[in-house]
């Protein structure tokens, strides 16, 4: 006899883990989290900072409220120590980006972030893993999962060969989308983008612990030992773009490098909602701040959104008229 779940969440990111935990614990749902626990030894594929790369006030409100709620949630699961305040500096090379950054900074100030001249102070960064062990969600590795996405019908799931009834399948992070959504079912709104993560040997001190160069497609985060994690968008001129953002000393040794993909939206705004015909629920385009959006996402899936949240999610659905929500692109590379 097959077991049933209200939700099957695909993804090993902090967002996926928190989402599964909140649905199971706070909303009392039966949740299956499909993920291999991430190895701390792997190079990070993203930097989780509560700084939405956005100019729309509705998005800032949702992100800021969600951040406060996420901080409280992490406090209840003894994970508050993973949250650290960090200065983030965004450097604009192009005139258009400088103007966009000025708008973003004004919005950040309006929502209580200490922002001056491209520097955003005391931005919450998540540094550490979120464990799903005590979340009441059941965990299973992707290797045990069978996933039928053929034909014009809702996706079906098997666990260890046994059919499982699931109310809603959720692809909760980029890796889950890339691994499970067949190319033919990708909406034109979403695109896969090549990425490179590099860890350098210790470098000179960066101007801020987290640096973003949107016009060069580079994000840097400096570690305690001085080594720098660099995330670079796109596949062209990766090394010279990365090096152009680093302070040296040169030549600077690379300790580790990995290539992967992420999911971006063509209009720069988050894309959240169901896809036809598979009825998969897709969460994409949340950027660096995605880890801090689990509480409103859990309410959305549980049918418990506030009116403002419901409006925001409706506007950001994959099938909505999205002209009024287009935002800063995560990538220009």
């Amino acid at each position, binding site marked *: 006899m097959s077991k049933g779940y209200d939700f099957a969440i695909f993804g090993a990111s902090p967002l996926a883990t928190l989402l599964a935990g909140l649905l199971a614990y706070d909303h009392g749902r039966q949740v299956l989290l499909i993920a291999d626990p991430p190895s701390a030894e*792997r190079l990070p594929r993203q930097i989780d900072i509560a700084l939405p790369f956005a100019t729309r006030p*509705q998005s800032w409100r949702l992100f800021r409220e969600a951040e406060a709620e996420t901080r409280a949630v992490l406090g209840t699961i003894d994970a508050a120590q993973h949250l650290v305040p960090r200065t983030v500096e965004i450097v604009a090379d192009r*005139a*258009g980006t400088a103007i966009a950054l000025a708008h973003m900074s*004004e919005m950040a100030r309006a929502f209580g972030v200490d922002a001056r001249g491209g520097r955003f102070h005391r931005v919450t960064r998540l540094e550490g893993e979120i464990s799903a062990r005590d979340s009441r969600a059941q965990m299973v590795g992707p290797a045990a999962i069978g996933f039928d996405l053929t034909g014009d019908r809702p996706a079906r799931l098997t666990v260890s060969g046994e059919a499982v009834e699931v109310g809603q399948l959720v692809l909760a992070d980029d890796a889950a989308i890339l691994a499970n959504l067949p190319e033919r079912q990708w909406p034109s709104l979403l695109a896969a983008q090549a990425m490179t993560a590099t860890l350098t040997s210790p470098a000179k001190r960066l101007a801020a612990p987290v640096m973003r160069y949107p016009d060069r497609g580079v994000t840097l985060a400096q570690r305690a030992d001085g080594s720098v994690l660099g995330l670079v968008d796109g596949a062209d001129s990766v090394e010279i773009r990365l090096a152009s953002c680093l302070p040296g000393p040169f030549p600077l040794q690379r300790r580790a*490098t990995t290539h992967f993909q992420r999911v971006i939206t063509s209009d720069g705004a988050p894309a959240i909602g169901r896809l036809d015909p598979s009825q998969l629920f897709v969460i994409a385009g949340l950027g660096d701040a995605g880890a801090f959006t689990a509480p409103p996402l859990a309410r959305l899936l549980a049918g418990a959104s506030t009116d403002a949240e419901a409006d925001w999610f409706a506007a950001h659905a994959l099938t909505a008229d999205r002209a009024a929500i287009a935002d800063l692109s995560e990538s220009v590379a």
Partner: protein
Amino acid sequence: MRLAADAAHQFGGIELDRSSPLRFKLNGRPIDAFAGDTVLTATLAAGIDGYGTLGDTPIGLSDRFAPLVTAKSVPPLPMELVPAVDGVEFTSVGRHKRKWFGREPTLCHRLETLPDAPWLRVEPVRTLETDLLVIGGGVAGLAAADAAAADGHRVLLAERHPWLGGDARYFGPVGDDETPEAVIARLVAQLKVRSNVTVLTRADVFGLQPGEARLHRVVVEGNAVRGEVVAVRALRVVLATGAVQRLPVFPGNRAPGVLTAIGAYHLAKRYGVSVGPSAIVATQSNHGYRLAMRLSDAGVKIGRVADTRIHPQSRFIDFAKAAGLTLASGQYPVAAEGGRITLAHTEGPAASTVFEASQLIVSGPWQPDLSLWMLAGGGIRWTPERNALIASGQVPQVAIAGSAAGYRSMPACLTSGVGAVAQVFGGAAEPIDDAEPGTAYETPDGPTLAAPLSPELPSFLDAGRTLAVRPAQGPGKPTARAHAAALGDVAASVELGLIAPADAGAIAEERGAPGADLLASAWRPAPDPAPAGDEVPAWLAHRFGDAPKRVHLIVDAQRRFAVGTLIYPPGTRPHPESAIGVIVETAAVGGIGLIDGASEADRFVLETPAGPSPARIARP
């Protein structure tokens, strides 16, 4: 110490010319040696088996972890590859404690930071062109070179060690098969007479990309020693890089006097060196017994052979019993420090026994050396059947042979060498049978057991220069020095449950092929013009209605408004969602605002960093 010249099993050192004694200095200390020694082997023979300290932890000197040495006429070169030269005053490279001229049996280095090999960033002095580059001079590499040369191809074989033959001799013959010595001698003799083969020893390939490799070679010409970087242009490559014996993970496993079995074997067989007169041998495989017997025959006092397996069966074990060695099944090392070696039972109570011996020889699992495979773009994955990382995927014109490809038996390694040549030249390869006759009656290698952590002694993940330490916090915490991890470190991390098997390949690839050093770059994106005229950027579209209008807002003749400043109707609570416009362009006075086209107001309040400011639409 030096074993007797006529020690059994040629453990007097087949590389040495005992009739040619010599003396050099290392860090000011005189070291006696023989022609054929390396600086490392003579140093170990002189009783100096410590490299230095990592924090307060003494770290041993070994063929896998030794410093560069330099002299007046010798650039920094690997200590294990530099020949002992009479009268030369060598210095080991790196940070030392102040008392490095002392009499301690250590080079007294501080190992928190290790100098990079200087040749990694040196341009090649010359370029060699060949049809096939064979990397590794073990039996598989020799067979590959011989097969390709026999077909008329130009072959360059590069071997890191000063000798050819790899590790085959350690395993010995099986049944009536040709002995490794005979196979190696035959292949080396065949290569010597082929004019289309170049063999370079002491040649370490450190870079490999499609069509070109780079190697660093220690060149010995009489008493002169130098290093050179050579580029090798070769469209086809056979990787016969062998396998590395990993160090079992236990507290004190990098202490001076702890050696891998293969390291101890080569020291004795090649150079007649034993790190002291007595040894405990800890093994999880049958070949550990073979080494113990040979060392015993050569004059090393074997205190005990401990085996992680319970009542293992092997012809080597029967021979060891007959030779009178003390054997202990179901035991493994749990600590080593200052010549005190603690063995404990693998099952049952945690009772342990302490032994005193000058060395602990540990026979750990084998990890195929796939570093160059990853540099060439090859993939890696973990296989639980072998407890090792193995190659996955394909790299055009690159083939793997021998134990690097996962083969165990010598016949399979030989066949795979020939098969690798067929693979890169488009020929048909013979099927490979990797079965070893007689092994069906022998207990297979046991699992790798990790001893409990010690608060005093760190446990290292492997024996290489990464010095990666097993974390005290358990899974989920990155290993100390994790991002320098080598394949052996990753394999140990999987066995310890520190990383998921599914992630092991990706982690190894991340570290195995990080790419060349980053050079200074002044790259900048091409400038783009700011939005001109009435153009509204997409991220601002529809924010202030479907038809927003641009207006010039002023408050007086001086004040200017910054881009992004929000515009509100008077009397409105200043919150971004109630703004009716925003400054989108600076102006000589005031600023250019984009406001809701439906708004008929001409007076506004702007929220500036200095506080709210009134503003009005400037009249033309």
